[in-house]
């Protein structure tokens, strides 16, 4: 017998895989006296243990002698609790969603063809799958600090790599940039005093939003800080929409009418959502501000 591998799986479950040849049988609960003796050959054992050390008795056909293997269980700390919780959630997802929509997931497993690309903030409160109800297969999603799209001339970023894939390979029909209330990234942007000298990653990243900050300061400086931030959150979305136009392959698709660009703002203080669409033909001829259409407000 060769012990092939020990896979420490979540929580107290430990799976052993052994190199027997022919017969596969699953042992029942091995603790205590629930052994089946005789000609049992084991290829996989799943064991439940409540003790900190696990003693395993393995009966082998060829030797007819028990062998003891001692395995240290992972410590009882948050790590195993986290894995236990994630395991339960995954199994619930599998039974409630995956198995009940098996045909859909089968199609999806072959390829994805989402109609939407969504750029949203990494904030834990604003996942687009939750707040806008995108189901598996519907939206290709990028999430970063403050849902920013840097312009083409800034060079490579994780956001524009994803844009290139979504627009040129997946051929999404819509790009939706979703901002939100009380955004920590925008607050950081508005609070920065002397960005050029800042050594933090956050400062280096949020300076993509400097044009939005300047515009906010020029028209909303009479408002208090929180209101200015709210203004900047929306201004930054529009700046990102304009930055999208700096990518030639995006502009090409807009010209052909194969792509639409939208902005969205989720306010979780009163659960409202505002959406608007970039009016491409008007923006093409304008250097000042942004032209939008189809503005809607839901609350």
């Amino acid at each position, binding site marked *: 017998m060769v012990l092939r591998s020990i896979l420490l799986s*979540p929580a107290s479950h430990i799976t052993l895989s052994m190199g027997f040849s022919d017969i596969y049988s699953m042992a029942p609960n091995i603790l205590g006296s629930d052994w089946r003796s005789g000609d049992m050959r084991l290829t996989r054992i799943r064991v439940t243990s409540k003790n900190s050390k696990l003693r395993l008795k393995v009966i082998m056909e060829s030797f007819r002698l028990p062998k003891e293997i001692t395995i240290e269980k992972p410590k009882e700390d948050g*790590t195993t609790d*986290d894995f236990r919780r*994630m*395991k339960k*959630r995954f199994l*619930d*997802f599998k039974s409630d969603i*995956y198995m*009940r*929509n098996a045909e*859909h*997931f089968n199609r999806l*497993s072959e390829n*994805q063809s989402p*109609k939407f690309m969504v750029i949203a903030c*990494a904030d*834990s*409160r604003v*996942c687009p*799958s*939750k707040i806008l*109800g*995108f*189901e*598996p*297969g519907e*939206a*290709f*999603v*990028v*999430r*970063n*600090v403050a849902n*920013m799209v*840097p312009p083409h001339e800034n*060079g*490579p*970023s*994780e956001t*524009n*790599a*994803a844009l*290139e*894939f979504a627009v040129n*390979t997946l051929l999404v029909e819509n790009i939706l940039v979703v901002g939100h*209330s009380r955004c*920590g*990234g925008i607050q950081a942007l508005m609070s920065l005093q002397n960005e050029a000298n800042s050594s933090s*990653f*956050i400062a*280096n*990243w*949020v300076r993509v939003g400097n044009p939005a900050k300047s515009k906010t300061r020029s028209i909303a400086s009479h408002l208090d800080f929180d209101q200015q931030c709210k203004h900047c959150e929306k201004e930054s979305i529009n700046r990102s929409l304009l930055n999208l136009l700096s990518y030639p392959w995006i502009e090409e698709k807009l010209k052909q009418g194969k792509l639409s660009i939208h902005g969205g703002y989720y306010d*979780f*203080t009163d659960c409202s*959502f505002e*959406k608007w669409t970039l009016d491409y033909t008007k923006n093409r001829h304008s250097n000042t501000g942004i032209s939008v259409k189809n503005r*809607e407000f*839901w609350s």
Partner: protein
Amino acid sequence: MPPHPVVDPPNPDLTTRRSKMAIDPCEEAISGLKKLLSEKKELTAEAAAKVRRITSELASATDKTAERIRAGFDHFKKENFEKNPVLHGELAKGQSPKFMVFACSDSRVCPSHVLNFQPGEAFMVRNIANMVPPYDKTKYSGIGAAIEYAVLHLKVENILVIGHSACGGIKGLMSIPDDGTTKSDFIEDWVSICKAAKAKVQSECKDLDLADKHTFLEKEAVNISLGNLLTYPFVREGVLKKTLALKGGHYDFINGSLELWNLNFNLNPVTSI
């Protein structure tokens, strides 16, 4: 920083979740008709033309962007936001997620579905192939900004990097020629973050078929990203002090399975000689 909320997120067991997904009926019909066309080769030319015409009529009827996201928002408001007023009241003041999650942008693998993360639970970064570049203030600094915010400001306790099956980004990485020539503006540069994993696959997995090589690379790339997390001093410090745990994962949507693992990192006490 805003105060941390003290309320637990909604119990995923009690939150009403659609078990029958709200798949657009038009999309289902189009998909069914396309399948019919490809499978039933014996369809007469006339019947095939009719099927194509119906498919294109249906396709034009599905251009209902605003309606689609409105329906999703209304469902969230009714079934989640309004049913958990205490939680959402606290979240309006601030967030204190225990998790930071790196997941792929792929439309099929959102952790809010697969692991049912509720609002407030996970600070989530999504990019192509769920990659974490090493510490660099100038290149790909957006990732560093997210990690810095999560670890230093939100004080998350876990960072989970979760990969998945049939990952287009990983396939792209495998396909980059050995001479390094690229066809894209940004994609190949991005996925090359995990080129060390590709080198490992090429040397250790010669006997595997291509699909298995991809799977191996999907998981090994997660490990590269976990290692890259340790190049951020604030992450390393958290891991050594045991205030931060790093975890890897792989979601296989073809077989409906999930693997999770820990990264263990320790520095033993220094011995002076």
